[in-house]
């Protein structure tokens, strides 16, 4: 297992290099001059050519792109992502807390999604084709198709404005989690519960189910086996939900003013704060790699066949 993790770590280095290099290139293609961004942000009243030139020198923008990229990458390895163009603060001091906030929102949502999709998936699989199955699938289809900003607005209107039960923004209390988590859960549970359901259904036709029944085993024992085997399939899918949601909380965070990565990245893109955008992409890519490795480990742990080959 240790060797496996080491191998995964080695493979992920070139991956992170490629991803970060692409973002670097894309950012440098932007028509905005970084020096201008910095001067604007500092509120310099009159931007002269000399001033621009000076700032470029200070930012090291006169050096070739590849050199800049390499220097940036090396300092990233030391967790130094440079300073924000706009606020002048170190990128990490902004990104770190935002990342944590988003991580909190994501983890709570993922737990809710896992619980809901397993419960609904199992229920629907056991009642396949019956009214319950059909109506759950119908409702979830509509909810999943609904854009999250619409869903969020409806929830805010009803629970916060009309009933005045829940806060509309920030993350001060436990209650602040309820609406954002609900929106994220509703948008994703529909997809994941379908995966649980179909993997349950395909397990139902497996030979071990037939043989177990032919041996007279009680249905409860059989269901347990089906669950165990079909959840193995779902484990890796659930793990990958973490980075996917981590990277897609933008809408929800903006609506609920959640001080997380989504809010920060949108603001940075609008104000062309390149160092933050760069670091944001790198962190997302890294968390994909980490979670992927983690999910493979969990899979190997629950699946004896994989455990051996690994």
């Amino acid at each position, binding site marked *: 297992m240790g060797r496996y993790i080491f191998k995964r770590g080695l493979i992920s280095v070139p991956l992170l290099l490629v991803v970060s290099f692409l973002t670097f290139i894309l950012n440098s293609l932007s028509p905005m001059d970084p020096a201008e961004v910095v001067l604007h942000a500092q509120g310099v009243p009159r931007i002269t050519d000399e001033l621009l030139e000076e700032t470029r020198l200070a930012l090291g923008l006169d050096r070739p792109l590849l050199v800049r990229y390499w220097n940036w990458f090396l300092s990233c390895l030391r967790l130094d992502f440079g300073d924000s163009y706009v606020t002048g603060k170190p990128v990490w001091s902004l990104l770190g807390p935002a990342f944590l906030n988003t991580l909190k929102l994501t983890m709570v949502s993922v737990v809710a999604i896992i619980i809901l999709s397993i419960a609904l998936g199992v229920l629907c699989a056991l009642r396949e084709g019956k009214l319950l199955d059909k109506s759950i699938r119908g409702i979830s289809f509509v909810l999943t198709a609904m854009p999250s900003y619409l869903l969020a607005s409806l929830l805010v209107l009803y629970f916060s404005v009309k009933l005045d039960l829940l806060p509309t923004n920030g993350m001060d209390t436990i209650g602040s989690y309820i609406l954002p988590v609900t929106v994220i859960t509703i948008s994703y549970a529909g997809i994941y519960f379908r995966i649980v359901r179909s993997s349950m259904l395909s397990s139902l036709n497996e*030979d*071990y189910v037939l043989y177990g029944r032919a041996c007279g085993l009680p249905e409860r024992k059989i269901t347990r086996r089906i669950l165990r085997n079909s959840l193995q399939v779902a484990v890796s899918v659930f793990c990958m939900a973490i980075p996917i949601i981590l990277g897609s909380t933008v809408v929800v965070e903006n609506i609920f003013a959640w001080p997380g990565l989504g809010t920060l990245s949108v603001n940075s893109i609008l104000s062309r704060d390149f160092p933050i955008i760069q670091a944001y992409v790198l962190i997302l890519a890294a968390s994909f790699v980490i979670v992927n490795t983690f999910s493979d480990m969990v899979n190997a742990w*629950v699946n004896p066949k994989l455990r051996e080959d690994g």
Partner: protein
Amino acid sequence: MNLLEVRNLRVWDGRGGSVLVSDSSFQLKKGSCLAIIGESGSGKSLTCRAIMRLNGRGLLQSGEIRFKGVDLNELDEREMRSRRGKQLYMILQNGMRAFDPSSVIGVHLRETLARHYRWNKNETTEKLRQAMQSVRLQDPIGILNKYPHQLSGGMLQRVMIALALLLEPDVILADEPTTALDTVSKFEVVEQFIQLRERTGCSMIFVSHELGVVRKLADEVMVMRAGSVIESGTAAAIFSNARHDYTRYLTSSQRKLNDRFQELMGGAGIADR
């Protein structure tokens, strides 16, 4: 005396409505072995599973399945379940898939025995050890702690036979138990089926493509085609003077293929491998 009498069994797809097994009738005498032969898709597996009432959801069945004087088709699910394993037992083609891939073999065996007997843990282990040894499985305790994918197809077949030795069912339905095996394992498994019948005196329905195996085991043969029984009789009669062209076609086209296997079956010494 007939232990099992099937009359006008019909299996159809509840959604599409297509009839998959139509009006098939046959009997299984006490202590005898009835082989079902027929081309792929002729309804052999459906017939076996219909007897155990284990065809997947969506498949419906009608007709009479009289077993020990009771019509199985009339029983409720609970009564039916109490007959599975102890009275009617099934052996499947692919051992690798017949056992739960995420637990060791011993779990299934112990759970099954716990369902039918009040043996304590040590008793169960001892019985399993004896049964597995008698089907020539070396290191039974080691095998109990192995996952299905760590054992060969032939070993898993013998594990299923060992369980039958302990359950002593009245009827064993074996659905192509030797098809997926190589020639040597096939020989060993057929040998164990013969001994299983001798030891438990059970009746058997044996589905097979392989007429060499059928000759060796079956007292009676029933030929299925496209969901119907087209011919049945004693093994000798079916093999020497079949009335139906299709049966003659089946028995002759397979004769060549089976010569090699027959040679092996006649040969001695391999059983002690």
